[in-house]
């Protein structure tokens, strides 16, 4: 199934390259099976549209058949930056640039023949996260969901504010349905972003909260 994956033969400069419509050689080198985007627009009276998007790449698990002692860094450093570029390009295209993006998140699902650590290796290192954060113009740590699953999963990808993670208005999740991925030997890697907060956020913030401890249990009015 995945026998065509090429051995690396040369260095490529992706820094100035838009990969939106031309990624055949890249796809062969990382075993890219499919790449998809979802864009959800919710009309909002005050904010105009709130647009939320996901970008997903489904690739061959580069560590299939290796054991739990296998070193993951080499392939992570080659593949994760490429995925960050592919996915952030698509989010920027869908949402009209980093200036429009307010919240972000990420996800990875590994198929049943892989380890959960394989999913983590592609999203939980600077080789993915730093590039995605830079491309989307953020400074916050990226919130995430990861797991091992069979094809057909519906994910709930958490998002929070890209420069102020504790901003409560921007705590939100985005649903994503992956009909035929990940197959047992694959990993699905996802980046997600929103142009705004929850549609009608009104549960205060850290700056407006009063002091709450378990003392409050003594006086709950029901």
């Amino acid at each position: 199934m995945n026998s065509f994956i090429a051995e690396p033969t040369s260095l490529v400069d992706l820094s100035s390259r838009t990969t939106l419509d031309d990624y055949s050689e890249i796809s062969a080198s990382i075993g890219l099976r499919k790449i998809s985007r979802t864009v959800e627009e919710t009309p909002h009276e005050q904010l105009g549209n709130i647009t939320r998007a996901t970008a997903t790449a489904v690739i061959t698990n580069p560590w299939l058949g290796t054991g739990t002692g296998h070193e993951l860094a080499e392939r992570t450093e080659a593949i994760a930056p490429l995925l960050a570029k592919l996915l952030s390009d698509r989010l920027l295209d869908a949402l009209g640039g980093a200036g429009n993006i307010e919240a972000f998140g990420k996800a990875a699902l590994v198929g049943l023949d892989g380890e959960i650590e394989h999913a983590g290796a592609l999203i939980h290192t600077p080789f993915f996260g730093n590039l995605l954060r830079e491309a989307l113009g953020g400074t916050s740590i990226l919130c995430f969901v990861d797991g091992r699953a069979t094809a057909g999963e519906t994910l709930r990808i958490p998002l929070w504010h890209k420069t102020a993670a504790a901003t409560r208005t921007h705590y939100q999740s985005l649903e994503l349905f992956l009909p035929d991925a990940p197959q047992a030997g694959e990993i699905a890697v996802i980046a997600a972003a929103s142009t705004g907060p929850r549609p009608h956020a009104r549960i205060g913030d850290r700056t407006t909260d009063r002091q709450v401890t378990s003392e409050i249990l003594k006086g709950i009015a029901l």
Partner: protein
Amino acid sequence: MNYRKLVTIIDETVTEGGRPVEPVARVVIVAAVIDNPWAGEGFVEDLNPGIDKVASAVGELLAPRVIEALGAPLEAYGKAAIVGLDGEIEHGSALIHTLKFGNHFRDAANATTLLPAVEKRGPAGVQFDIPLKHFTDATIRSHHQSVEVKIADAPHPDEILIALAGATRGRPQERLAPLSTEQ
């Protein structure tokens, strides 16, 4: 045209069966979640006033978005109406099985054939498959294909989800003999 949400899905298949797909197979789905125009009215005998109010406007909303997101000439297409649990399947059919809806897509895509369709009723988050066929000749076997869609919170019981789907080519590794070889 008022809608609660509008969802665009762009799916590109780069590899299938272990081999590269050239050109890449791109499928686009654009779905609008709208109020069921007959919600709360009981059994409505004459659906035409509701059709006149909504069908053309939904087609006009969705069709250009499919063409734009495809970014290449359309070769196959299809449509869907998913009715929330309080409605009739007939309500969904009413909105998509009319030239007032489909002609927007046919005109935008320079297409001539009838659009294959799925109509069903289900809860929010119901999964459905949209069938697609060739845009000028529905007997062209290479272009028979389906796409799977699921929108987590739609349709609500009093809503209808209306979708159009388009593809830039036939199936990723299509290699079946044409229909004519069996006739």
